[in-house]
């Protein structure tokens, strides 16, 4: 019985090991980005009118005139000390900036996940309980429609409905939840809803097919033969074995949510990671872009390790060690 648990733990360990080359590859490519700039990187960053002294100063600090390998080793050394350098123009420590901005994006992403799950799982249960029925076919048609809506469309439509027509929610802006928790919820609502349109449809699809598959199992047949009600079977017998699949998808959707944060944050002027990257792109702020690329990879690896540990939690064959 111990074996199931250690399998999941070993899988989590393998993920960590497999994540290392991915991390190295991405962070190195991010360091080498400045070599893609036409002409001298420092010149491009500072613009046409930069003086030679300014260029020399920039090169001295960021080393854009040195080979990418050297710069990468420098960056790794800094990383070990928790120092990611300074942003090019506002001269803020990159690490500090990143922590503040990531918190905002995470709040929105996690809430969007929560809302989508709360919508999708119950509907998927109802739908799978009568596969092929009216509810099921209606919901599957609605889902394929929702899945065709890009985030940049849902953003526009939802803000039109909720802030222009109904005037329920503010169109743009941001308040930290630590300053004004209620106000924060008002500002968070539209970004979260916009991301949830696609997400809930996606979760619904996965959960519905998983529930439908679980309902074909013998133990469900036994439960039905005992005369248990469908809702009882759904909640007590079918829910738990169907969850691992949903958990995997939850991990995968992290990339989608981070990608969606670019649209949502730029449209609603929310100061998160996506918004930061967009500003960095405008200013050629490579240290910021590099740090965010690295952070994204780390998030991805960590999420998948959490997913593996989540399997261990859900699976009743696992004993705590």
């Amino acid at each position, binding site marked *: 019985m111990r074996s199931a648990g250690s399998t999941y733990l070993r899988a989590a360990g393998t993920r960590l090991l497999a994540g290392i080359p991915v991390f190295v590859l991405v962070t190195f490519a991010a360091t080498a980005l400045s070599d893609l700039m036409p002409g001298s990187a420092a010149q491009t960053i500072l613009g046409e009118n930069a003086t030679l002294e300014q260029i020399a100063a920039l090169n001295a600090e960021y080393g854009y005139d040195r080979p990418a390998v050297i710069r990468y080793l420098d960056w790794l050394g800094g990383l070990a000390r928790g120092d990611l350098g300074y942003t090019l123009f506002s001269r803020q420590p990159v690490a500090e900036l990143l922590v503040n901005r990531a918190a905002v994006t995470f709040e929105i992403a996690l809430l969007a996940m929560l809302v989508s799950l709360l919508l999708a799982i119950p509907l998927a249960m109802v739908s799978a309980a009568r596969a092929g029925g009216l509810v099921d076919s209606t919901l599957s048609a609605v889902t394929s429609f929702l899945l065709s809506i890009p985030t940049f469309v849902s953003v*526009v439509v939802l803000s039109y409905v909720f802030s222009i027509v109904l005037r329920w929610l503010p169109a743009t802006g941001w308040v930290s939840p630590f300053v004004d928790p209620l106000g924060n919820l008002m500002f968070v609502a539209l970004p979260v809803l916009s991301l949830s349109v696609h997400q809930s449809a996606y979760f619904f699809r996965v959960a519905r097919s998983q529930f439908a598959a679980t309902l074909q199992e013998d133990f469900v047949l036994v439960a039905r033969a005992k005369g248990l009600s469908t809702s009882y079977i759904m909640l007590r017998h079918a829910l738990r074995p169907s969850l691992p699949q949903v958990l995997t998808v939850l991990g995968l959707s992290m990339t989608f949510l981070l990608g969606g944060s670019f649209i949502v944050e730029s449209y609603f002027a929310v100061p998160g990671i996506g918004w930061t990257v967009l500003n960095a792109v405008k200013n050629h702020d490579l240290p910021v872009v590099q740090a965010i690329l690295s952070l994204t990879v780390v998030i991805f690896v960590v999420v998948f390790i959490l997913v593996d540990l989540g399997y261990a939690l859900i699976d009743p064959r696992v004993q705590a060690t």
Partner: protein
Amino acid sequence: MSTLEAHPVSAGEKPLAAPRRLRWPRLTLAEAFSFLFLLLLIAGAIFADRIPGLVRPNFPYGDFSRPPEWSINGLFGTDGLGRSIFSRILHGARATLTIVGIATLISLGFGLLLGMLAGYYRGIIERFVDLFANTVAALPPILVILALLTATGPSVTTMTLALGFLEIGTYARIAKGGVISQYDRDYILAARALGASDARILLREILPNLMPTLAALVPPLMAGLIITEGSLSFLGYGIAPPAPSWGGMIADSTDLLSRFPLLIFGPILTIVCTVFALNTVGDYLSRRIDRREKQL
């Protein structure tokens, strides 16, 4: 029978033995719409210049922000500068479909090559393909392309190449899996016994068997590319104005949204229908494979 097949749950029933190997399942209403819509869109994109009566996309054709009316140029209204939205949609379709088409060719070509070699020879090349696929899967494509654009500045060429490059891993992984699943089958053994070379086995024996799977995969992945391109254009880093693009048109009309909400209808309808149609066609093609697998 066809109504049952729309629901994968009831897939337990046995299909009747088909006389031909690759029988096309009957189209549902949504699938027929999807094929028709895509055909019209592609035709519209190709012949956008030659449609009689249609004005050029950057031509100020009438008053600004006119609501939709029943004429070819005014079908979806005019935008903030008085340009025909319908004409801009068709020309935007041309730009989008070109970018997405080229990107798909790049990723399909390199992905197939790498994936087939990885599945056939395994070893170091498989490690490499896996590493590449895992790396790309860890990053949202928008982020990677924006990072590239930080260095190169806004450029449609960079975007197209990057879109293609980022999708190589997906196709490679599918091709690899396909080759591995075919590798031990008897017909490969027979080909080898007849003295066929590795190249012949890969290209003439295995490749045709990968085609149906890949054909089902291409449309939804193209839909994903259309969304990524649209997002970048929406953010102002894709197709640069005044050239028409769906994402750019949606971004433009948000400024006038409170006064002229109808003007955003055309671009939104087009992009949602396109993505829906591509996804539906993908589902249809994979339904065809499922059916074939069951018959084998």
